[in-house]
């Protein structure tokens, strides 16, 4: 069980509720080179079973992160996945370099949902080739024994193509999904609910999109480890991702509602796996792809259909 980037604060806040070293990993918010004040408020709006946010990567910048946040996690022995965000390939690379010597980095997650300032603000995750370029340069700048995870967003025409580009670019694992872009309008003020206009949609509302992405990518790239996320609130939700093909599950917005969500979901998932006779999580990964009775390689060819 992991925290989702941007949803677990610095780790200290959650440590009031449970032992963060017992997490599969603590994933940091996306760290940027310079300090960022983020977006104006309102930064959040509730939607049916969902949450729109436009925080805008507020954070202290990589230097303050390395002196004030990472050491706290490292001292306690928490496995830490550092998420990084940038506006150019060079910025991602610089971040990866800066992290390379830092002790206590379990993995680097590349948040590809950032606008590429060199491509008219087009988000990296929407364009396989620029996503791959970022991943490749981060991979090159990162220690060989530190995995690089590419984090993808669902608002693309073909998630499998983007996933494949990232893997070709050197991603050791994929994290799915980041928030699709959404919006709400306040009918009383007659203005967008968020100061930023649009925002990222998270929560159970997007779970069907997330499960679909995990399913499609696992079907196409069965050897690539996937961290599934998007609307996980219970062990059943987590199991849904595992059966669709995720080998780890991250919890985001649910932390806002239940600060104990990670240990609770972990426990619930273990119970569900035991009930179903699984000794290890790994045995359940991707199982929904195999019709009952079929051999482990007998993947079904359910095609996509929005009709």
């Amino acid at each position, binding site marked *: 069980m992991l925290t989702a980037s*941007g*949803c*677990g*604060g610095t780790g200290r*806040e*959650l440590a*009031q*509720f449970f032992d963060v070293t017992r997490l599969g990993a603590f994933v940091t*918010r996306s760290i940027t080179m*310079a*300090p*960022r*004040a*983020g*977006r*104006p*408020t*309102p*930064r*959040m709006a*509730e939607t*049916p*079973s*969902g*949450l729109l*946010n436009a*925080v805008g990567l*507020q*954070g*202290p*910048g990589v230097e303050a992160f390395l002196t004030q946040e990472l050491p706290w996690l490292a001292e306690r022995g928490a496995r830490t996945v550092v998420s990084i965000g940038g506006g150019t390939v060079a910025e991602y690379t610089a971040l990866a370099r800066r992290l390379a010597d830092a002790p206590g980095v379990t993995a680097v997650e590349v948040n590809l949902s950032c606008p590429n300032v060199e491509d008219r603000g087009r988000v990296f995750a929407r364009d396989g080739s620029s996503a791959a370029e970022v991943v490749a340069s981060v991979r090159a700048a990162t220690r060989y024994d530190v995995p690089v995870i590419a984090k993808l967003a669902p608002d693309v025409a073909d998630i499998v193509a983007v996933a494949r580009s990232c893997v070709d670019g050197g991603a050791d694992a994929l994290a799915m999904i980041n928030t699709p872009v959404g919006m709400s309008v306040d009918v009383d003020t007659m203005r967008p609910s968020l*100061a930023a206009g649009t925002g990222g949609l998270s*929560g*159970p509302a997007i779970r069907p999109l997330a499960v679909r992405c995990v399913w499609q990518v696992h079907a196409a790239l069965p050897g690539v480890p996937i961290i599934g996320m998007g609307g996980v609130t219970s062990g059943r939700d987590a199991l849904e991702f595992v059966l669709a093909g995720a080998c780890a599950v991250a919890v985001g*917005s649910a*932390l*806002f*509602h*239940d*600060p*104990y969500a990670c240990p609770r979901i972990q426990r619930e998932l273990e119970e569900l796996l035991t009930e179903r006779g699984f000794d290890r999580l790994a045995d359940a990964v991707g199982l929904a792809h195999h019709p009952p009775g079929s051999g482990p390689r007998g993947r079904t060819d359910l095609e996509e259909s929005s009709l």
Partner: protein
Amino acid sequence: MAASPVQVTGTVLTTRRVDAYHALTVVAPGVADRTRPGHFVGVAVGGPSTSMLTRRAFAIHDVKPDYGGTVELVFTVRGPGTAWLADLRARDTLDLVGPLGRPFPLPRDPCTCVLVGGEYGSASLFALGDALQQRGCRIDFVLGAPSADRLFGALRARRMGETTTLTTEDGSIGMRGKVTDVLPGVIADTRADVVYACGPMAMLQGVTAVAVEFDIPVQVAVEEAMACGIGVCMTCVLPVIGDDGVTRMVRACTDGPVFRGERVRFEDVGTIPFDALGAPGGRHA
């Protein structure tokens, strides 16, 4: 100063209407124990299959030792979450996380305090008044609201406070006008040493301006839309000037909700001031 919060599934003990408000007393031992004046709770709304994801924040009005510890919330119906709360009956359960936030700092030595409340903002002032009186402080209340039915706690204020001044915008009770119209007089009359305020942002801004005028400290409890209440989501930020003079976008939930009034850049709430740390193109970027 933040007390370590806990999550509890409490039982509703009583529900009652107080003018425009609903009051809900909930058995919540772990929360009640740790509560200090100014703390708030995050309340899960809508029941098991709800479409409402975020907890709602409410100031803790009263804490009582009954049944191992109860907390009372006072609220007004604004949207679907508070509508659901208003429909609760005794014996229903309610899921709370708290106590949250930094409570009001208390003066070391006895002094004279003016407590200013706007609408349900006064709810958090009575526990504060108790604590101040226990430290030998004199307290005076100034309570305001648009109309009499939205003025919360006038009776209790009259019983507790040395003086109590009420204002309503429609004049239905007390003076016609706003708390800031009467506050200078109260500060002058009582020779107040400090002001505490809780209520709408515009009121806090006005109260702060008055206190600054009198050159006395002012502690304000702000209200910002919150998704988590525990400091992890970064949605509840507002520009506050730090000890080092630098403006930062700080979290109302864990860095606040109580701030020194003059440190809050009220005019800039809802923006990223150009000189804030990390502002786009700003000097600290």
